């Protein structure tokens, strides 16, 4: 029996692709055949046969990075950005982590919802984009009249969902918001236990950190001082 290194999950940024099942939208991996079932922790599986993913010398595991600006453009342009918790066996890298278990802590959908449903092609092929649009439209139809994508994600995953003031998460690359994103990531993890127990102060602290980040991303406001 070994003592754990951390008693709070590791928090990191990542991007999900928008999928759908019979009850609404589902978060999927943009690169691998894996989906995040609502209210269930996803567990890494290595397709190369590693015994305990993530392994040190392999590339398996559930990925997250320490700064959203590290997410490459092809991923950001058609994805749902979010901060995820990683726990279990976690391999720490210079720029991020690979984890054994993952569940989102906060999600950001591009504004407005129609932009997501339109799914900018980005790195997707036309056929992939068409299928994504159909899935997203289906999810919107079955999740109830007037329910936006953000509402549906909030209902299913039971995590805060915010709307980015830009049409693509790729706008992170053009703004000096690294420190603000770091505060959101820290607060997601640090206040997790208190938020679960209904601590409104902890929830408000996370909301304030998110608000500051969203203000930093607004194109109509002057850039934040360094």
């Amino acid at each position: 029996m070994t003592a754990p290194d951390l008693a709070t999950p590791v928090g990191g940024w990542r991007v999900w692709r928008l999928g759908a099942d019979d009850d609404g939208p589902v978060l999927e991996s943009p690169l691998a055949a894996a989906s995040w079932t609502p209210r269930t922790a996803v567990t890494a599986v290595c397709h190369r046969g590693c015994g305990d993913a993530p392994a040190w010398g392999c590339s398996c595991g559930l990925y997250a990075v320490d700064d959203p600006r590290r997410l490459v453009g092809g991923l950001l342009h058609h994805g749902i950005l979010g901060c995820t918790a990683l726990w279990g066996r976690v391999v720490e890298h210079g720029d991020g982590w690979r984890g054994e278990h993952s569940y989102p802590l906060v999600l950001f959908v591009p504004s407005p919802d129609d932009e997501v449903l339109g799914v900018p092609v980005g790195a997707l092929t036309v056929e992939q984009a068409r299928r994504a649009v159909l899935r997203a439209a289906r999810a919107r139809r079955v999740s109830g009249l007037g329910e936006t994508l953000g509402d549906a994600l909030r209902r299913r995953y039971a995590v805060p969902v915010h709307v980015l003031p830009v049409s693509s998460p790729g706008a992170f690359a053009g703004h000096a918001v690294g420190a603000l994103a770091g505060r959101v990531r820290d607060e997601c993890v640090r206040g997790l236990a208190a938020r679960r127990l209904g601590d409104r102060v902890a929830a408000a602290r996370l909301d304030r950190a998110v608000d500051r980040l969203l203000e930093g991303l607004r194109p109509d406001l002057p850039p934040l001082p360094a």
Partner: protein
Amino acid sequence: MYLGEPVRVLHVEPVVSPVPDGDFPEVAAALPEPRPRPTPRRGAGVPPARRGRPRPTPITGA
């Protein structure tokens, strides 16, 4: 995606599960009912009043 060189392996066991189980966002997690406080037995006499601690006599002229 390239994350840089691996640095170390962490064993992370969160005290609170990051997966919500119906306690978010409006309803707080259900806490266990407080245990009942012990009550005196039936017929038990009234306990004698507790005396306060004797105050030390002030020392003067030391």
